[in-house]
């Protein structure tokens, strides 16, 4: 009877194993809990879920299992950030944006296509009256609503620098648990290690012990030394969302490898390019930002910097005041990046875009210039080269 529940958990991508499931069955057999739904819920959660970040998913599966329903549209709708519904004026278009849309075939056509897709979407999900309703009220925000992601940018045939506002979407934090295939990256990153003796002297230093024992007339004179540890310090900056979506898996692998390889590792997220603030948690990106100046002042110049991003955007986003896709930036992105590079001489940009496209994209050329050519492809070889550059 419970196997279906177990199945559902696995389908929801929660890492549960047979062992854990058997544990749950054994616990039930032993009558640990009085038969009561609440207690069963607690017991199942304690047995099967080993990380609080999966609690939410578990709750969804659990309640669905109880109701015997599959996922319903209401559930998905609940995950829409309320602020979009509250402030549709956020999403209104400026003149330039209108021109852009015109160049893509006009707003009418876009919206029509949009609605058509939306309907297809709702048919699949059943009973989606709400979708249309919401769409009618605030059509511009809709891209983010849809977990499948209706990408209006698709109309542009792969040209990724396109419609600004539509790209607003719910970002997910990088999942650092992608262990698969990170070994190569780890090996590459390991090159960056700089071993230094630090901390308590608790290892026997054999050479000095022997020589000082000899000097001591054969009586033992023990010499100890501190263990070697990796003292390299790393700051990572990730471009997140929008055009980076196709590379998310690759980025996760890098993140996961770096996280296990470096003891002093800090990371920040940005969207497309770096401006006056960054953030650490994508769920909180609206209200919990870190000023870039603070990052510059917090870490000293011994930190090595990795920027990870596809560097593909409109040139205004780099060079112009107010060029950001998301907000009005008082200072150009390039200004901020130069500030960062002045403070941290050791910095590289890792780009997941295949290297053959680099020359045809203007923003990539601009960033390469900013970084004095220190841009490398996000491949094992590229990382190795980047690391070699950082070691110099």
């Amino acid at each position, binding site marked *: 009877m419970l196997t279906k529940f177990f199945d559902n958990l696995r389908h929801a991508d929660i*890492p549960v*194993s047979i*062992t*854990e499931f058997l*544990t749950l069955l*054994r*616990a039930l057999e*032993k*009558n*640990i*809990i009085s038969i009561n739904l*609440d*207690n069963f819920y*607690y*017991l199942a*959660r*304690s*047995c099967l*879920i*080993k*990380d*609080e970040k999966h*609690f939410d998913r578990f709750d969804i599966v659990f309640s669905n299992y109880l109701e015997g329903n599959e996922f319903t549209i209401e559930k998905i709708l609940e995950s829409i950030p309320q602020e979009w519904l509250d402030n549709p004026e956020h999403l209104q278009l400026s003149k330039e944006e209108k021109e852009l849309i015109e160049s893509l075939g006009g707003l009418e056509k876009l919206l029509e296509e949009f609605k058509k897709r939306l309907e297809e979407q709702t048919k699949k999900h059943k009973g989606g009256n709400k979708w249309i309703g919401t769409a009618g009220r605030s059509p511009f925000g809709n891209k983010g609503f849809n977990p499948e992601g209706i990408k209006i940018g698709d109309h542009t045939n792969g040209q990724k620098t396109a419609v600004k506002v539509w790209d607003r979407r719910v970002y997910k934090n990088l999942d*650092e*648990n992608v262990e698969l295939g990170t070994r190569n990256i780890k090996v590459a990153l390991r090159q960056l290690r700089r071993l230094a003796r630090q*901390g*308590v002297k*608790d290892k*026997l230093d054999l050479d000095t012990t022997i020589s000082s024992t000899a000097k001591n007339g054969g*009586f*033992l004179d*023990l010499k100890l030394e501190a*263990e070697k540890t990796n003292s390299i310090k790393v700051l990572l900056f990730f471009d997140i969302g929008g055009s980076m979506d196709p590379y998310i898996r690759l980025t996760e692998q890098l993140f996961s490898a770096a*996280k*296990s390889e470096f003891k002093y590792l800090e990371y920040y997220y940005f969207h497309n390019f770096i401006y006056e603030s960054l953030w650490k948690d994508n769920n*909180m990106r609206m*209200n*919990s*930002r870190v000023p870039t100046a603070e990052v510059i002042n917090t870490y000293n110049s011994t930190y090595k910097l990795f920027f990870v991003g596809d560097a593909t955007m409109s040139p205004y986003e780099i060079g112009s005041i107010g060029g950001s896709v998301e907000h009005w930036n008082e200072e150009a992105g390039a200004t901020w990046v130069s500030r960062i590079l002045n403070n941290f001489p050791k910095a590289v940009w890792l780009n997941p875009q295949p290297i053959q496209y680099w020359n045809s994209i203007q923003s990539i050329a601009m960033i390469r210039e900013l970084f004095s050519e220190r841009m490398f492809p996000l491949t094992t070889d590229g990382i190795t080269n980047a690391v070699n550059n950082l070691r110099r």
Partner: protein
Amino acid sequence: MSEKFTGSEKYVATEDLMVAVNAAVTLEKPLLVKGEPGTGKTMLAEEMARALGKPLIEWHIKSTTKATQGLYEYDAVARLRDSQLGDEKVNDISNYIVKGKLWETFISKEQPILLIDEIDKADVEFPNDLLRELDRMEFFVYETKKLIKANNKPIIIITSNNEKELPDAFLRRCFFHYIAFPDKETMIEIISVHFPKIKKKLINEALECFFELREIPGLKKKPTTSELLDWIKLLIAEDIPPDALREKDTQKAIPKLYGALLKNEQDMHLFERLVFLSRRNSAN
């Protein structure tokens, strides 16, 4: 079944915590406890030991702790030194085997509670190195060729602050409980357990301040239960009347003694700035 853990006079256990603890005790599997710092993870083991009347063995993990240190250590250096000095002890190797916390736990006469505190501080490989020992509750001493087996399978409580991910193989062998941040009702219960004589009004005023403070976006370190308890202790010691906490709109908008709640310079500044802004707004 043996006695169940239902909290103690100093520890308020929620329903889900009790289920997790009792499941772990019955099935003789380790219980992994996570949660914000200051929500009483370590205290859980202490209070369990008190409530169930079992001995508590604490193993505090540091970044330099190795898994084998929990089993035993062979003090070769001491033996070498003794051999130079011609000590008789040197002939018996077992004189130089220093028992670790796990060994101590295994040979305990009655069923003990073993607390492995802050397991995430240790090296990434640390939990993996303990898999077999925690699974079978036995290990082999190579120097003396002896198998050490647990007399009574201990109750194992492991705490983690989430600084490192724990390996899957390890997690699979544990029960897991995440101590969520207490809601207002639980918090009132916790406070009255610690300060039985406290006035209701002070609790309410203090809690309101506290939860408001926690909701300030951008705080580096949100105040938690243990900070709240410290703060209330201070409030009582200084004999501050509940009304003094309420003066939100007046000139004295900064709550008294808030240094006990905010431990971070940036947070203090942020908070002071917010208070300043709200004061200016109310003045207009």
